[in-house]
C-alpha cells in the first residue's frame, strides 16, 4: 500500500471513528459516572477525528488534514477553555454549557483555516473577530460593573455585552482580514494600484482577499454551498424529529446550548430558514459576480474593493448566525415577530445582528451590479442586446439595494427595544406589533423575487443554448423581470391577511399580489415557445433547467390560493405554505443554481463535471423533491400547522411525515453526490477548454479557464444574443481576432 490512498483513508477513517467514539464515551463516563452512548461529546469527537484520519490516510499530511487537525485540537482547546471559564465564573461544571460550546466552535473553526492555509485572510479575520467580540463584551461588562450592575448572565456575559461584542467582532474581522486596508490607505491619501497582482495562485487565492470578480464569484458560491449544507443539516435534524408524532429526541429533558428539546427545534427550524435564505443571497451574488462582467465584456465589477468587502462581510455574518444557535437560540421562526422576539434569549440578538450584517453584503453587492451594468458594457451592447441574465441581475439588484434596508431597520428596532426598553412593538408602551410585520415584509416579500429572478434569468439564458433556438420574445422576458420586481414592492401585506391589520387593506393587496402572476406567466409561455420546434438536447445543466421550470410552475401556481384572502384564511401558517415556498425556492433558485454550476464549471476550471454523477444527482433529487412538497401541501391543507415540534397523532399524519423525512434525506444524499462531483472534477474532470455548449455568448468564445484579465482583446457587439438557427449571424466580434475557441 502506498503511503496515502483512498483505501488507506477509509481504513484510517474507521479506526479514527471507533477510537474517538470510545474515547468520548469513556470521557463522559469518567466525568458523569453514567454510560450514555448517544451523547453529543462522543458524536462530535468521532466526527472531527474521523474526518482528520480519513484525510490523513487518503492524502497524507495535506493542508486539509492539517485543517481538520486544527479543527479537532482547536475545538477541544476551546471547549476546555470554556469549561474553565465557566468553572471560574459559575463555580460549577456544566458539560453542555453554551460557553464551552461557543469557544469550541469559534476556536475550532479558526484553527481549521489556520491549518489549511496558515495565516490567510479568513483565519486572520476570524482570530480578530474572536478578539473583537471579547473586547466588546468586556468593555460593556466593565462599564456595567462601574455602574454597579451585574456583569455576568446565563451565557457568561450580559445581553448588551454580547451585542456590542458581536458588532465589534464584525468590524474586527473586516479590519483584521485586510478587506478594508485599501480604503484606509485612501483615507490617508495614499494611492493604490487599480488591481493588485495576485499574491497567490492556485486554490490559496480563494482564501485571501482578491479583487478579481471571478475569484469573488467563486468565493461566494463556495460559501453558499457551505451554508446550504449547514442549513440542510439543520433541516435533516428537525425533519428526523418530525418523522413521527410525539417527541423523539428533542425531548423536554435534554438541555443543549441552554435550550430544551422543543426550544432547540424552534432554533434549528428558524436558523434553517434564515441560513438557507442567506445562502441564496450569497449564491445569486456568486452567479452575478461571476457571470455579469463576463457577459458584459467588462474587465471587472465597477467597484472591485466594494465587491470584495461585500463578500467578506458575509463571513462574520455567518459566524454570528452560528453563534445564535449556541447562545440560547431563539424561537420565533425566521420572521422574528415581536413581542415573542422581544422575549427570546440572547441568541435572538446574534440572529438579528447576523442578518443585519448579511444584509449589507446584499445591498452593496446589488449597488455594484447596477453600476457595472450601467457603466461597464462592451461597445455596441445596447440595453436590448444584453444577455438576458443581465436584465434579471439588474431587476434583482434594484430590490436588494432598496428594500433590504427595511428588514435591517425592523430588526434594529427590536434590538433596541430589547436593549433600551424602547417600546416600538410593545403594546404596554403604546407600540404596535403589526408595524413590525409591515416593515419586515416590505423587504421579505420583494426578497422572494430577489431569490428567483436570477434563477429565472439562468433559465432564460440556458434554454436557447440547449434548444438551439432564439429566446422567444426577448424583450418581453426582459421587461417581465422588471415588472415582477416593481409590482413586487406593492404586495407585502399578503403575508398579513390574518394579522389583524386594517381589514380594508386586504382586498387591494389581493389584487396587487395576483398581478404578479402575469409577468411570471409571460416568462413561462415564452419558455415553452422557445422549446417549441427546437433541436433540444439535455445534458445535466439542461435537466436542471427543465426541472426548475416545472418545480417553479408548481410553486407559482400554489401562489394564487394564498393570495386570495378567503382561501388564505385557511392556508396561512400551514404546511401548504411551506410546500409553496419550497417549490418556488427550489424551482426559482436551487435548480437553476445547480444548472448554472454545471454550465459554467468548465469556464471556471477548464474541466467538466461528471455527466453520470450529474444525472444521478438530478434523478435522485427531483422525484424526492416532488414527494417532499406534495406531501407538505397535502397535510397542510388537512390541518398541519407550521413550526410545530410535535403534532396531534389523531390527525394521522405519521406516515406522510415519515415519507417527507425520507425524501429530505434523499435530497441530502443527492446534494452530497453533487459536492463530491464538484470537488473531484476540479482535479480529475475531463478537460474542456473550448466552447463546451456551443454557445453564442462572449465568455465561451475564448478558451477556458478564463484568464485573470477577462478578455485580452475587447469585443464589440454586432448582432443579437440569441440568433441560433440564423446562418452567418454573430453576437460578438473580437476587435482583433482571437485564435482558440471554436466557432
Amino acid at each position, binding site marked *: 500500500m502506498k503511503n496515502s490512498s483512498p483505501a488507506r483513508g477509509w481504513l484510517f477513517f474507521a479506526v479514527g471513528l471507533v477510537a474517538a467514539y470510545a474515547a468520548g464515551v469513556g470521557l463522559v463516563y469518567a466525568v458523569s459516572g453514567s454510560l450514555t452512548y448517544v451523547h453529543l461529546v462522543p458524536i462530535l469527537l468521532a466526527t472531527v477525528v474521523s474526518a482528520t484520519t480519513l484525510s490523513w490516510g487518503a492524502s497524507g499530511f495535506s493542508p486539509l488534514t492539517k485543517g481538520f487537525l486544527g479543527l479537532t485540537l482547536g475545538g477541544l482547546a476551546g471547549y476546555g477553555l470554556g469549561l474553565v471559564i465557566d468553572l471560574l465564573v459559575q463555580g460549577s461544571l456544566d458539560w453542555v454549557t453554551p460557553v464551552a460550546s461557543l469557544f469550541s466552535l469559534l476556536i475550532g473553526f479558526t484553527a481549521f483555516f489556520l491549518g489549511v492555509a496558515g495565516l490567510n485572510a479568513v483565519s486572520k479575520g476570524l482570530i480578530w473577530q474572536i478578539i473583537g467580540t471579547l473586547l466588546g463584551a468586556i468593555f460593556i461588562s466593565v462599564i456595567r460593573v462601574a455602574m454597579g450592575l451585574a456583569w455576568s448572565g446565563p451565557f457568561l456575559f450580559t445581553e448588551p455585552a454580547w451585542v456590542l461584542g458581536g458588532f465589534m467582532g464584525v468590524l474586527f474581522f473586516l479590519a483584521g482580514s485586510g478587506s478594508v486596508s485599501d480604503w484606509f490607505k485612501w483615507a490617508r491619501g495614499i494611492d493604490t494600484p487599480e488591481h493588485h497582482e495576485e499574491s497567490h495562485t492556485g486554490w490559496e487565492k480563494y482564501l485571501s482577499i482578491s479583487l478579481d470578480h471571478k475569484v469573488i464569484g467563486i468565493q461566494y458560491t463556495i460559501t453558499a454551498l457551505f451554508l446550504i449544507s449547514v442549513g440542510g443539516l439543520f433541516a435533516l435534524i428537525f425533519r428526523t424529529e418530525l418523522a413521527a408524532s410525539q417527541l423523539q429526541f428533542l425531548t423536554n429533558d435534554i438541555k443543549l446550548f441552554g435550550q430544551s428539546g422543543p426550544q432547540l427545534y424552534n432554533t434549528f427550524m428558524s436558523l434553517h430558514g434564515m441560513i438557507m435564505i442567506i445562502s441564496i443571497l450569497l449564491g445569486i451574488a456568486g452567479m452575478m459576480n461571476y457571470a455579469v462582467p463576463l457577459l458584459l465584456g467588462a474587465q471587472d465589477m465597477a467597484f472591485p474593493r466594494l465587491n470584495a468587502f461585500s463578500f467578506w462581510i458575509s463571513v462574520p455574518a455567518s459566524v454570528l448566525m452560528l453563534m445564535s444557535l449556541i447562545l440560547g437560540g431563539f424561537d420565533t421562526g425566521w420572521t422574528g415577530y415581536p413581542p415573542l422576539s422581544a422575549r427570546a434569549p440572547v441568541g435572538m440578538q446574534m440572529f438579528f445582528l447576523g442578518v443585519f450584517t448579511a444584509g449589507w453584503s446584499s445591498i452593496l453587492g446589488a*449597488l455594484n451590479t447596477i*453600476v457595472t451594468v450601467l457603466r461597464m458594457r462592451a461597445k455596441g451592447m445596447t440595453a436590448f442586446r444584453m444577455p438576458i441574465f443581465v436584465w434579471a441581475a439588474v431587476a434583482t439588484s434594484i430590490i436588494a439595494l432598496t428594500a433590504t*434596508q427595511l428588514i435591517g431597520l*425592523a430588526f434594529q428596532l427590536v434590538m433596541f427595544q430589547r436593549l433600551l426598553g*424602547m417600546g*416600538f412593538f410593545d403594546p404596554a408602551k403604546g407600540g404596535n406589533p403589526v408595524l413590525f410585520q409591515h416593515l419586515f415584509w416590505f423587504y421579505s416579500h420583494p426578497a422572494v423575487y430577489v431569490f428567483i429572478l436570477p434563477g429565472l434569468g439562468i433559465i432564460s439564458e440556458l434554454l436557447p443554448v440547449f434548444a438551439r433556438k432564439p429566446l422567444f420574445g426577448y424583450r418581453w422576458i426582459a421587461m417581465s423581470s422588471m415588472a415582477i420586481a416593481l409590482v413586487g414592492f406593492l404586495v407585502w401585506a399578503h403575508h398579513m391577511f390574518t394579522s389583524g391589520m386594517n381589514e380594508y387593506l386586504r382586498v387591494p393587496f389581493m389584487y396587487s399580489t395576483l398581478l404578479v402572476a402575469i409577468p411570471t406567466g409571460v416568462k413561462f409561455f415564452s419558455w415553452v415557445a422557445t422549446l417549441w420546434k427546437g433541436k433540444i438536447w439535455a445534458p445535466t445543466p439542461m435537466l436542471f433547467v427543465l426541472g426548475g421550470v416545472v418545480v417553479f410552475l408548481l410553486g407559482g401556481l400554489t401562489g394564487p390560493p394564498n393570495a386570495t384572502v378567503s382561501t388564505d384564511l385557511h392556508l396561512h401558517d400551514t404546511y401548504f405554505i411551506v410546500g409553496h415556498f419550497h417549490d418556488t425556492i427550489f424551482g426559482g433558485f436551487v435548480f437553476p443554481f445547480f444548472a448554472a454550476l454545471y454550465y459554467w464549471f468548465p469556464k471556471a476550471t477548464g474541466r467538466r463535471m461528471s455527466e453520470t454523477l450529474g444525472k444521478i444527482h438530478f434523478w435522485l433529487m427531483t422525484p424526492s423533491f416532488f414527494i417532499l412538497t406534495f406531501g407538505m401541501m397535502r397535510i397542510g391543507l388537512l390541518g398541519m400547522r407550521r413550526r410545530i415540534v410535535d403534532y396531534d397523532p389523531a390527525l394521522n399524519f405519521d406516515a406522510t411525515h415519515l415519507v417527507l423525512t425520507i425524501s429530505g434525506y434523499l435530497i441530502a444524499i443527492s446534494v452530497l453526490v453533487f459536492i463530491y462531483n464538484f470537488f473531484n472534477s476540479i482535479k480529475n474532470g475531463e478537460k474542456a477548454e473550448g466552447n463546451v455548449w456551443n454557445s453564442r455568448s462572449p465568455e465561451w468564445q475564448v478558451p477556458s479557464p478564463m484568464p485573470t484579465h477577462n478578455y485580452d482583446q475587447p469585443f464589440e457587439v454586432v448582432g443579437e444574443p440569441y440568433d441560433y438557427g440564423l446562418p452567418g449571424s454573430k453576437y460578438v466580434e473580437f476587435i482583433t481576432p482571437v485564435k482558440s475557441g471554436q466557432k
Partner: protein
Amino acid sequence: MSHTQDKSSAFSQGVLVFVYLAVLTLLEYFVAVTFNAVSILVVVAVIKAALVMYYYMHIYKLNEDSGDDQHSDAYKTGTNRIGLWLFLLSDAFVFAGLMTARINLLGLTRPHLNQLLGLAVTAVLLISSFFMNRGETAMAHGDKKGFFINTLITFVLGLGFLFGVVAVEWPLAAAEGLTPSSGVAGAVFYMMTGMHAFHVFTGLLFMLVVLNNARKGVYSAEKHWGVEAAAVYWHFIDLVWIFFYPALYLIGKLL
C-alpha cells in the same frame, strides 16, 4: 441658472439658495406655531429638499456625459457618482422606514420638545450645508484655501449640531420625562435623532479625511471626487433633517 459658471456667480448662487432655504425654514416654524397645517409643512419640506438636491447636491451631474473611454478619470468619476447616489437611495429607505414608524406610532401628535433648540440646531445644520457648498465650489475652481476654510467651518458647525442634539437636547428631553423607555414617543424620538446623529458623525469623519487629504494636496480643480462625495453626503444628511425636523418638532398636536 446654468451650471457652468465662474466662481463668484457660483458663490452667489449658493447664497441665494441658502436664503430661500432659511426663509422656508422660518415659514415652516411659524406655520407650526400659529396653526396646525400638515399639508403646508409637507409642501415646504419637499421644496426645500428639491432645492438642496438640485443646487447643493448637483443631482443633474448624474446626467453629465463623461465620454466613451472607460479608463478616463472623467468616466470613473461618473461611475463613482452613480454609485454614491445609489447608496444614498438605499440609505433613504432607512429614513423612510423610520418616518413610517413615526407616522404609524405617533400619528398627528408630537413629543414635547424644546422648540427654540430645535430651530437652532436646524439652522446650524442648514448653515453648515451652505458652507459645505462653498467649500466644494472653491475646490472646483482650484481655490484650495477657500476650500479649507469653508470646510473647516462646516466641520465646526456639524460638530455643533451633533453636540446640540446629543449633549443638549437629549438630556433636556430626558429631564422632561421623555426617555427611550418611557413610551413610543421617546422611542421614536431617540431612534430618529440617533440614527440621524450617527450619519452626522460619519459625515464628520468623512470630512476629516477629506480635509487631511486636501492638506496633503491630493485634490485639484479637475480631480476632487473625494471632496464632491463628502459634500454630497453632507447635504444628504441635511436633506434627511429637512424631513425629520418637522416630523419631530412641528407636526401635529402636543402629546
